[in-house]
């Protein structure tokens, strides 16, 4: 009956309750929306980084991690690739031959990372093949094809079918030069990546270097991001002579940014709730002051002060939870809509590219966040209720009854 009384009391002054409910609902809606956009941006950065080049897990030789030298390749790399493919949960594996070199055009030159790939394997691990904006992704059989980023193309003044020269060190330390023809230009969400990476076919690279096939990096794509931890442990145990790292270890700044976005969302909502707390306290205080006589009567006829306190607390929780659920509902529906339709931020595409984020943002809020938000609302309600509830229980029944 105390619960029923508290619920009915919330609706005694409908106008007053609705005003604060609307404030709570829209305050939370704003918090959730901005939070989900931040989370969406964080997720986008993670997703694009994984899809672009990181994959879920990478394997390197221990020395390669210290120094990116051609000689620091993974021993029996192709055997490792085959073994990695047979691990439960692994979707695709791609071996990369990585050499630091110089890309030169007739007008300019620039330091680049030359990535030798087997196109069909790489296609299953990363999505560079989908980012081609001009030309194709190693579709012809001509030798010495190269795919470069849009930014590098602009820097070196290169076009599709332009010739360029790569200079790189071979295993002996001698510099070799190889002429390539641009067959594709890609554009990813990261302009930095587009500037620094060029892709060639592994077999062309091995032929130019006149070496047996070697790999410096093995990129592994998992069937689900949920099994990252467990698969990472399996791979680490299996290839303990190599360095095995997850994308979180490879790009801690991206992982940190993703976590930071989550923390910011909590902080943002906490600030909104803190501001709303004063509104809720004010509403409840008015509600208590309006009912001084009635509260005095309740205490007079035998309602313990503990119960009066609980009643005010329940009223505040009901008020906050109703507004909170309203906000969560409106916010949830808005997020659900935009998470499939996306928010077009192409007007800010250049700025977003510097962050490595897509220009179409898909707001996202994990389910656990809704639960934590509900807990935060209840905690805020409890805090907001303290002062009005104390005011109520400090009433002297003999005086309160005479209040008109």
């Amino acid at each position, binding site marked *: 009956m105390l619960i029923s009384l508290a619920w009915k009391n919330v609706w005694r002054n409908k106008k007053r309750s609705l005003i604060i409910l609307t404030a709570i609902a829209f305050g939370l809606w704003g918090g959730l929306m901005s939070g989900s956009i931040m989370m969406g941006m964080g997720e986008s950065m993670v997703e694009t980084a994984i899809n672009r080049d990181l994959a879920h897990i990478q394997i390197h030789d221990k020395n390669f991690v210290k120094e990116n030298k051609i000689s620091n390749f993974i021993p029996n790399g192709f055997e490792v690739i085959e073994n990695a493919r047979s691990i439960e949960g692994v979707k695709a594996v791609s071996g990369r031959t990585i050499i630091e070199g110089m890309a030169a055009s007739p007008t300019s030159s620039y330091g680049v990372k030359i990535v030798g790939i087997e196109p069909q394997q790489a296609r299953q691990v990363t999505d560079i093949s989908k980012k081609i904006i001009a030309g194709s992704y190693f579709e012809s059989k001509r030798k010495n094809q190269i795919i470069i980023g849009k930014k590098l193309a602009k820097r070196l003044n290169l076009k599709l079918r332009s010739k360029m020269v790569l200079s790189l060190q071979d295993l002996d330390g001698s510099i070799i030069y190889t002429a390539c023809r641009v067959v594709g230009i890609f554009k990813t969400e990261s302009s930095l990546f587009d500037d620094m990476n060029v892709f060639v076919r592994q077999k062309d690279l091995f032929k130019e270097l006149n070496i047996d096939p070697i790999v410096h990096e093995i990129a592994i794509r998992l069937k689900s991001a949920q099994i990252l931890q467990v698969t990472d442990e399996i791979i680490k145990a299996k290839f303990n002579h190599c360095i095995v790292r997850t994308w979180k270890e490879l790009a801690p700044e991206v992982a940190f940014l993703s976590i930071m976005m989550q923390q910011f969302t909590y902080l943002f909502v906490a600030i909104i709730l803190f501001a709303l707390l004063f509104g809720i306290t004010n509403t409840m205080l008015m509600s208590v002051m309006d009912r001084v006589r009635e509260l005095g*009567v309740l205490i007079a006829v*035998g*309602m313990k002060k503990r119960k009066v306190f609980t009643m005010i607390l329940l009223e505040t929780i009901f008020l906050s939870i109703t507004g909170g659920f309203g906000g969560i509902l409106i916010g949830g529906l808005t997020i659900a809509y935009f998470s499939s339709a996306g928010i077009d931020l192409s007007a800010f595409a250049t700025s977003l590219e510097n962050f490595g984020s897509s220009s179409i943002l898909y707001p996202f809020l994990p389910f656990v966040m809704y639960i934590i938000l509900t807990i935060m609302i209840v905690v805020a309600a409890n805090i907001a209720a303290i002062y009005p509830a104390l005011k109520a229980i400090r009433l002297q029944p*003999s005086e309160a009854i005479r209040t008109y």
Partner: protein
Amino acid sequence: MSLIELIDLEKIYNTTSVPVHAVNNVNFVIEKEEFTAIVGPSGSGKTTLLNLIGGLDKPTKGSILIEGEEIVNLKSGKLIDYRLHHIGFVFQAYNLIPVFTAKENVEFIMLLQGVGKAERDKRTIELLETVGLGDRINSRPSQMSGGQQQRVAVARALASRPNFVLADEPTANLDSTSAEALLDLMEELNEKYQMTFIFSTHDARVIKRARRVITLEDGAVKSDITAKN
């Protein structure tokens, strides 16, 4: 053992520069089944005296014994418990919970006492029928007349099965018909169920019906007259 015994009771308010003796050296005894009116002009100390007897206020000096038990020194929590189980209250302005129906208003007291649902339902219906509101159990206070609301207040006061009922100016807000009907009801409850009623009033109709009239003046007992049957 007397139901209520007031010994050298004093209540002084120090809210102004001059202390006010709201209750001044009051001594009297009230026995079970009495139908007593405490009368006097405004400011004579009637409500203060009733508040003291009801444990809503603490005296400055003196003792209040209810069935031999001193209630003056009871702590706040114990006093609330004492009121819940031993005293029924009827207020001038009815003071029902507006969001509750008549049934819920009566039932609420039993709920505070921890009475089980079946027993609560049974007693609530009985009480509302006794006060003549068996057909209004689901009405809210705003849907009832002043007289009906005061009857619900009487039913609420009796819900805890108290030792006595304190009624502060119970007829002050009622028209004469409703006031007479309420007095009939309280008289009937007194005679039929031996319920002790103590009123504070300056309503001549109540004074006429009371079997004992204690008159206060400046906080002190001026006269104490028991009607001869």
